[in-house]
Structures are given as C-alpha cells and as structure tokens.
C-alpha cells in the first residue's frame, strides 16, 4: 500500500516534469533564435545603428552600404494592401456562410475556403508568375492605367510600365492567401452569436442586414480582430509566393506597378550571394527586425484583446 503510494507520487512528478520540459522547450527555442539573430547582426548594428539602418534606402552590396528602408517599406506596403483587399472579401465570405448560404451549399463553400489555406505558397508563386502576372500585365493593369492614370496625384499610383511583376500583383496574391484565415475565424465567431441575441434584434424589427451589421459583427469583433492579426503575421512573413511576383528591386516604390522587395524575399535571395561578413550581418539584422515586428504586432493584439475583454 505504501509502496503503491510512493510509486504514484513518482509518476506524478515525472508527468509534471515532462509537461514542464515541453513548455520550457518553446521558450528556449524562441529565446535562442532571438539571441542568435542578435549576435549575428551585431557587426551591422555597430556600423549602421538602429535608426540609421531602418531609415536608409541604400542597399549596395558592392559598396557595403546597407539600409532596411526599402525592404521594410515593401513588406509593410504589400501587407497593408493585402489586408485592405482581404478583410472585406473575408467578411463577405464569412457572412455568407454563416447567415445567407443555403444549408446544402454551406459545407462546400466552407471547405473550399479552407482548401485555399492548404495550397502551398510555392504554388501560389508559380501560378502568380505564369498565369496571374501575365493576365495583370495584359488586361487589368493597362485598364487601370487608362481609367485612373490621367487623374492628378491618384494617377501616380498607376504610372509606369505595367509588367505584372509588381506590388499590385503581389498584394492581390497575398490577399488570396490570407483570406481563408480571416474568413474561417470570422465565420466561427459569427456562429457563436447566441441565436436569441439575433432573434431579439429581429424581434424589434431589424432586417437581416441590420442584424448582421449591428449585432453579429460587433459581437464577433474580437474574434475577427484575432483573425486579422494572424493573417497579418502570415502576410508579413510570406516568402515564396512573393519572391516570384515582386521583382526584388531595392527602391521605394511610388506606383502600384513598381517592382519592390520585402525582407523575407531579400533574405531568401541574397544569403547565397552574401560574400562579406557585413553583408551577411545586415541580412541577419533584417531578419531580427522582421521577427521583432511580428512580436510587436502580436503583443499589441494581445493588449487590445485583453482590454476589449475587460470592457
């Protein structure tokens, strides 16, 4: 009896230690990645500083002058445009599936949306380069240029030679890639709206659209926000698809038809070419900035979510 008890205590302890180890491993991996990136970026950090690196637009491997502004700009602009396109699209999909879709069609459309997330990003890249970019170059972009090109200021966004390998094409492909994340999380949170809450709104004379706008969306806004943050992280870090269609050009683009570069694509393309220590270190520095950016986004999101739960 006593033996049995002692044996059980041991098992308990081993079990607790195992779970602790598993949890600790996650922390250890994150900290060690951070530390190693930091160590490798030290030479570039010492040479350019933080603000000097982020604000400089020059990326000259031969002259060994490195600035992150162009790639940072490319990353932020493509992500922002992708979100601008993906959020309304995803809301439409989620609302349709949750509220308007005939029950027979529902699983079909829901599965199709999720399959979109299962397509490997290299395939998006190939499709983008060989199918989508030529379509953009031949039809969509010339049409946009004809329509908006002559308008002052706005026209600038549509200037240049429409080659299809540019910010617009990249943002559209990114938006297709992140749509399923926002849409499926939004749909799940819509489905969690208590039926009686919806019925209450119908009960005082709201139409279907008014119930969706005034009850379902506010009720689901925390979940929708979470989905957007996940999608944003995905877009910031996407490499393969972007590498095919963005053109890898280190310059601040002013037109949607300009090629650009993101941090991830620069890293993927240039590690093999990095022939000096400083070049290599600058690439690590870029990686560190990307990782920090993702951390900040996540931290901000957590704060907002925590605050909205209190209120």
């Amino acid at each position, binding site marked *: 009896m006593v033996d049995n008890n002692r044996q059980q205590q041991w098992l308990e302890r081993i079990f607790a230690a195992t779970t602790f180890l598993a949890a600790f491993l996650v922390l250890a991996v994150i900290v060690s990645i951070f530390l190693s990136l930091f160590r490798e970026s030290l030479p570039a950090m010492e040479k350019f500083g933080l603000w000097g690196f982020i604000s400089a637009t020059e990326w000259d491997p031969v002259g060994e002058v490195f600035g992150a502004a162009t790639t940072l700009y490319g990353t932020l602009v493509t992500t922002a445009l992708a979100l601008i396109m993906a959020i309304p699209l995803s809301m439409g999909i989620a609302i349709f599936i949750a509220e308007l879709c005939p029950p027979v069609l529902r699983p079909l459309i829901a599965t199709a949306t999720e399959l979109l997330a299962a397509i490997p990003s290299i395939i998006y890249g190939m499709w983008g380069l060989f199918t989508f970019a030529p379509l953009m170059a031949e039809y969509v972009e010339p049409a946009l240029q004809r329509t908006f090109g002559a308008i002052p200021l706005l026209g600038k966004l549509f200037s240049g030679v429409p080659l299809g390998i540019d910010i617009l094409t990249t943002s559209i492909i990114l938006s297709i890639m992140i749509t399923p994340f926002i849409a499926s999380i939004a749909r799940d949170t819509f489905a969690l709206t208590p039926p*009686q809450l919806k019925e209450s709104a119908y*009960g*005082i004379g*709201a139409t279907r659209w008014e119930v969706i706008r*005034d*009850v379902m969306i506010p009720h689901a806004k925390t979940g929708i926000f979470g989905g957007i943050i996940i999608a944003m992280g995905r877009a910031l870090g996407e490499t393969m698809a972007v590498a095919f269609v963005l053109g890898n050009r280190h310059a601040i683009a002013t037109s949607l038809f300009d090629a650009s570069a993101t941090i991830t694509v620069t890293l993927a393309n240039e590690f093999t070419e990095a022939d000096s220590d400083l070049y290599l270190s600058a690439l690590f520095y870029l990686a560190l900035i990307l990782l920090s950016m993702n951390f900040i986004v996540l931290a901000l999101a957590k704060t907002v979510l925590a605050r909205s739960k209190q209120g």
Partner: protein
Amino acid sequence: MAEAVLVVNDLNFYYNGTVQAVKGLSMTVERHSVTALIGPSGCGKTTFLRCINRMHDLYPGHRYEGEIIFEGSNLLCRKDITALRSRIGMVFQKPTPFPMSIADNIAYGLKLQGIKNRAELADRVEAALKQAALWEEVADRLKQPASGLSGGQQQRLVIARALAVQPDIILFDEPTSALDPISTSKIEELMVELKKDVTIIIVTHNMQQAARISDRTAFMYMGELIEVDATDKMFTNPARQLTEDYITGRFG
C-alpha cells in the same frame, strides 16, 4: 368580454415539414391583459409563442396552417414580417442586451424605424427606461456598455427596448427563469404595471408566477390547448381533469 387583440383559429405548426408541434389551437387574447401559457416541457407553448411574431420564419423547414388574426388580417399570411415584429416584441429567458451602450440598446429599435432626431431619441430612451422601472438605476451611466448591468437589470433593459418601439403585444418566453427571486419579483410587478400599455403573453414553468400575474391562463399538453380560462378559475376549479393534475403537480 374585452376587445380581442389576437384571435387564433385552428393553428397547426410543423417543424421540418412533418413534426407537428402545435395541433389545432384556437384561443382569443384580450387587449391589455396578461395571458399565461403553462404546460410541461415540450408541450408546444414556446413554439406557439414564436408563431405569433413569425420567429420560425428565420429557420428552414417550418410550416404554418390556420390563422392568427391581428389588426384585421391573418398575420401568418403577412409579407412584411419585419414590420409585424416591430408591433409584437419578444423577451427571452436569458437577457439579450446588444453589444452597445445602455442608451443605444433602447434607441436601436427607434433608429430602425427611421427616427434620427437626437432630442426625440433621448426622450424616448428616457421614457422607455422609466416605463421599465430602470431609469433611476442607470440614468447616470447611459453611455456605458449594457453588458455591465446585473442580470435582472439587463432583463428590464431588454423589456425597455421592446417597449421603446411601442408594440401592441410583448411575448415573454420564461423571462425570469434565469433570475434571482428579487429580480424576478421586480419583473413580475413590471409586467402587471405594463398591462395598461401593452398586451402580454408569457410562457412560464412557474405556476405561482402564472397565478400571481396573469388574468387568463392557457394550459397546453402535447401540442394541444387543453383549456383556457380566467386564471382564478383555472387554479381553483379547472374544467378538465388533466389541467387539475398538472396544476396540483401530479405530473409535469
């Protein structure tokens, strides 16, 4: 007999096209009265209640037969369901405040009706909150989220919201079964008070509640209306044995 606000004639209701939940129900609901619907779980009283504001129309597979005469026509044939529902309010078991401020909860139905004038909205919000005996408790925090109120306050807020659009009828589906005794008695007092403005139909599992607040009581069993009469008579001298058995707690 007082003026009838609803006349139900041979109402049948089916879920999924075949499962009959209300069978041949006929009764009259008098204006400015409280009518209680009682009966064991699954007897069809909530289903009947939800026929009156066509709530079943939100879900596929429903089928109505018969007629419910309201404002001179059969409401089961009406096409303007949204307008109908603004005439017939509904309050549920659990309080359902909308995710917005206290004032906006009340103003919401009014805005749906196209009222935009701020002063008028503020007046109607105040009037509805006073009518629901909630004004004193929330007057200084109208802009705060409704989710911060207690359960009983939320339920009175929901009643105020229903009152604000000035309906003819308010349907209550077990409105106090999720509340503590003090909140319950406040809501009961309120319902009796509201009789002068609206007609009330309430589904309740609480026999004492039905006896305390209702003028007439209808007893349903397995989809059928067994008996409907003045509450005093139902609880002292019902015509049917089944009613007596249920009221005295012999089953249910």
